[in-house]
């Protein structure tokens, strides 16, 4: 199986082939000699590779996870070929504008833009309060406000859609 794995923003291609109960693992064309052992069913993994030992903690699901090695955190996204194709199509569609999502759960304290407004990059769109801190959510790029998905005083969950921007024309 071929996977496209993005680690801290950098993409790697990994092939995993199971043969006689042993896994062949190739990362970016290089075969790794790797001993992968699950310690428990909670994400603790013991890995031996190339003269080093790694105690990994893996948290997440099959698409997105974080791996911690000795306190250092690696953010990982995983796609197989089918998912990669689907995501590429999505990305093409959204090109130029973009959907602004809530990076954390919170309450929309104030909306600073309305539909139809023209905004410039880094312009505040709304204020989101979380953990008693108020955070200005800013425009990722120049554009036009196409949809405002939230209202003032509305509680939103992490990842919720806030504002859809279209490319400025």
């Amino acid at each position, binding site marked *: *199986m071929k996977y496209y794995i993005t680690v801290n923003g950098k993409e790697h291609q990994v092939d995993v082939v*199971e043969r006689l109960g042993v896994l062949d693992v190739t990362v970016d064309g290089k075969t790794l000699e790797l001993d*992968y052992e699950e310690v428990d069913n909670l994400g603790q993994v013991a*890995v031996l590779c190339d003269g080093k030992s790694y105690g990994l*903690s893996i948290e997440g699901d099959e698409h997105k996870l974080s791996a911690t090695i000795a306190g250092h955190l690696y*953010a990982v996204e*995983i796609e197989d070929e089918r998912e990669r194709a689907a995501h590429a199509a999505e990305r093409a569609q959204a090109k130029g504008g973009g959907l602004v999502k809530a990076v954390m759960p919170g309450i929309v304290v104030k909306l600073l833009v309305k539909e139809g407004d023209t905004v410039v990059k880094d312009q505040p769109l709304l204020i989101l309060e979380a953990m008693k801190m108020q955070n200005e959510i800013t425009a990722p790029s120049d554009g036009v406000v196409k949809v405002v998905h939230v209202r003032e005083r509305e509680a939103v969950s992490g990842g919720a859609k806030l504002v859809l921007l279209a490319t400025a024309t």
Partner: protein
Amino acid sequence: MFRRILVANRGEIALRVIRTCREMGIEPVAVFSDVDRKALHTRMAYNAVSLGGALPRESYLDMDKVIAAAKSTGCEAIHPGYGFLSENAEFAERVTKEGLVWIGPPPAAIRGMGDKITSRRNMTRANVPVVPGLTDPVADADAALAAAEKIGYPIMLKAAAGGGGKGMRVVRSKNDMASAFRTASGEALSSFRDGSMYMERYLDEPRHIEIQVLFDKHGHGVHFGERECSIQRRHQKLIEEAPSVVITPELRKKMGDIALAAGRAVGYENAGTVEFLYSKGDVYFLEMNTRLQVEHPVTEMVYGVDLVREQLRIAYGEELGYDQSSIQPRGWAFEVRINAEDPFNNFVPSIGTISNLRAPGGAWVRLDAALYRGMEVSLNYDPMLAKLIVWGPDRMSAIARMRRALQELNVGGVRTGAPAALRVLEDERFQRGEFDTGFLGTLDLSKPSEGEDLIVAAAAAIHRHLLARRRALGTSASSRGAWQARSRERHTNYPPHRPEAARAKEAQR
């Protein structure tokens, strides 16, 4: 000594107080909101009383409920921890009026230091040096703009009634003032119901240094030297240490004397902390925190003193029983706050269920936490999950120990700021002691770690592969946890540790 006391708090500080109570033979009674029914502080207390509610104002901030809990369980005193009602003079008064002992300073002392403006006035009167700025708060952005011209940029905006980094902003030019005032004042209004802001000059290369003091009820006061808390994100402390590299014995004595004078000026009793801004050799009074600080453990490690024990002794009326000359520091201590937050995404809060825990161990490593597997981390309360504290005979060995301990720690299920702390501790400027309160902002935390990317990529692929395989095969395959990529046995000269027979059997599964 008290026979039974109420601990009017939750999380690690509730457990911290409970632990000292247990060691002193005092029966600690816990209180809990609905969401905290299963929390460790309820399970390790002698008794635990439901306050109902989920939000702080329905539970830990509800004075009536807390006092009723203390009285119905026969408690003699209330320890407030930090946060919640700990700096509420009205609550302290009510506790006393109900015939209970308040384990903290007298209400008048809390009021005297209660908001930054009152304390600034009191301190100016007592000849304590303060940061240049306004004595009176401003109510809107226009007034702030006008005042800023007199004080001079950069300006620090602070909520008049604030604390904990909420309602604070640095304003570097007048163009930023309106936006900064709006968000800071909004935070202050929502957190403290008071949107007025205090303005002062933002000093160059500022370092946050504070002095721990203890006053008994018999006129004795001592200080336990300084803590440095300059490593902050969003004006909240991340790493604290004791002592500080910039404090000489002479300056320690000077700051200690100022701190004791500050406390005496308001008739202080019990434990307190006087915060200073240090800039290029000069120190300025910032505020006094009239309670136990989050970072008190670094002082405990360096001075060998249990500050909660001292609080209980003082509140019970005992004399300190020692003087300043017997208080000597030994070695160096660090604390890292383990918050549920994403250090690679501007420290935004992270929520989830604690799915896995690996506590660091070994010599001179202390974990103050109330974490347990299955715990829900929500937005209801402060995101601080744990404090990791280490001691070493000198600063570099303490840094090395903290790095080792952070590498052992694993809190699965939420993101924590621990990787950011690790980056700080790895930085040579930090190791040399060259930093100020802006240090964390100068680190590029988004820069990926190096070297282990390929291992992570391979492990992630295998992880996904096994998940998919298990789903396909059902639970029967779920016990299969070991996978070996080919040729591993070539590493060593003796036979592979997995006999051929076992390997063949695996292939059949």
